[in-house]
């Protein structure tokens, strides 16, 4: 463990921010270009995880455990969000026989 933590000592903070920005943008692109509701949902997960990583990095950077506690709360929230979202997707599939997000632009079926 000690040797692993030695390994990050040379990585600048900007590179972590860059990594999170790239993964967040990939999530945004995924939401914009896919029509499958489950893949759109997974892109949202990708964005949440990018933010989680950045919060952890800032927590280590400023030596403050509050950031990691926030990440814990975000994970609990993401679990609740996934349960509800997937239940809604199952309900949509039962009513329309499709999970294409483009059918859902009328707010009724």
């Amino acid at each position: 463990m000690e040797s692993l933590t030695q390994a990050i000592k040379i990585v600048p903070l900007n590179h972590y921010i860059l990594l999170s920005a790239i993964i967040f943008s990939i999530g945004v692109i995924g939401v914009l270009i896919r029509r499958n509701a489950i893949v759109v949902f997974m892109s949202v997960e990708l964005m949440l995880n990018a933010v989680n990583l950045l919060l952890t990095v800032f927590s280590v950077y400023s030596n403050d455990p509050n950031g990691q506690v926030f990440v814990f709360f975000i994970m609990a929230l993401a679990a609740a969000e996934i349960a509800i979202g997937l239940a809604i997707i199952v309900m949509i599939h039962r009513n329309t026989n499709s999970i294409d997000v483009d059918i859902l632009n009328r707010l009724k079926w």
Partner: protein
Amino acid sequence: MSIFYFIAFLSILFSLLVIFAKNPVHSVLYLIITFFTFTIHYILLNAQFLAIVNFIVYMGAILVLFLFVMMMLNLNKDAEPTKSIYVKMIGVIGGGSLLVTLVAALKGLAKSQPVVLQNVNLGSVQNLGKVLFSEFLLPFEVSSILLLSAMVGAVLLATRDNKPKVTV
């Protein structure tokens, strides 16, 4: 130093594969690998508690839930109708300009300090537990109510009501 860049490269590669894979089941599998690389990032930052929680909750629970829903809906064979190439290009341009904006804002910063772990026990279960149960006790309890209501809501939404409603 190089291990971080290698893992970061893998994270970006597999998250690109998540959004560009044709088959949604492959997307879920790539997402599992992406989350595994995030777990390695947490271990590199010595955030042991978050690494374990990320491993158990994300890779264990959430992605299994995705796979179960996909199995229930039987989405494996029928490919989704793809969006037109123009809409895709507009989406990629939109996300790309977001990335360019973020990177340009990053360029405005001064040269950054390296991320140095000052306190080795920062991310340990003991340290985080002390903070969680003293400073953040109320949000912790509220999040338990959130999880309970999410469970009730999911059961309510996903059960099929095929019998007519009985009015009391």
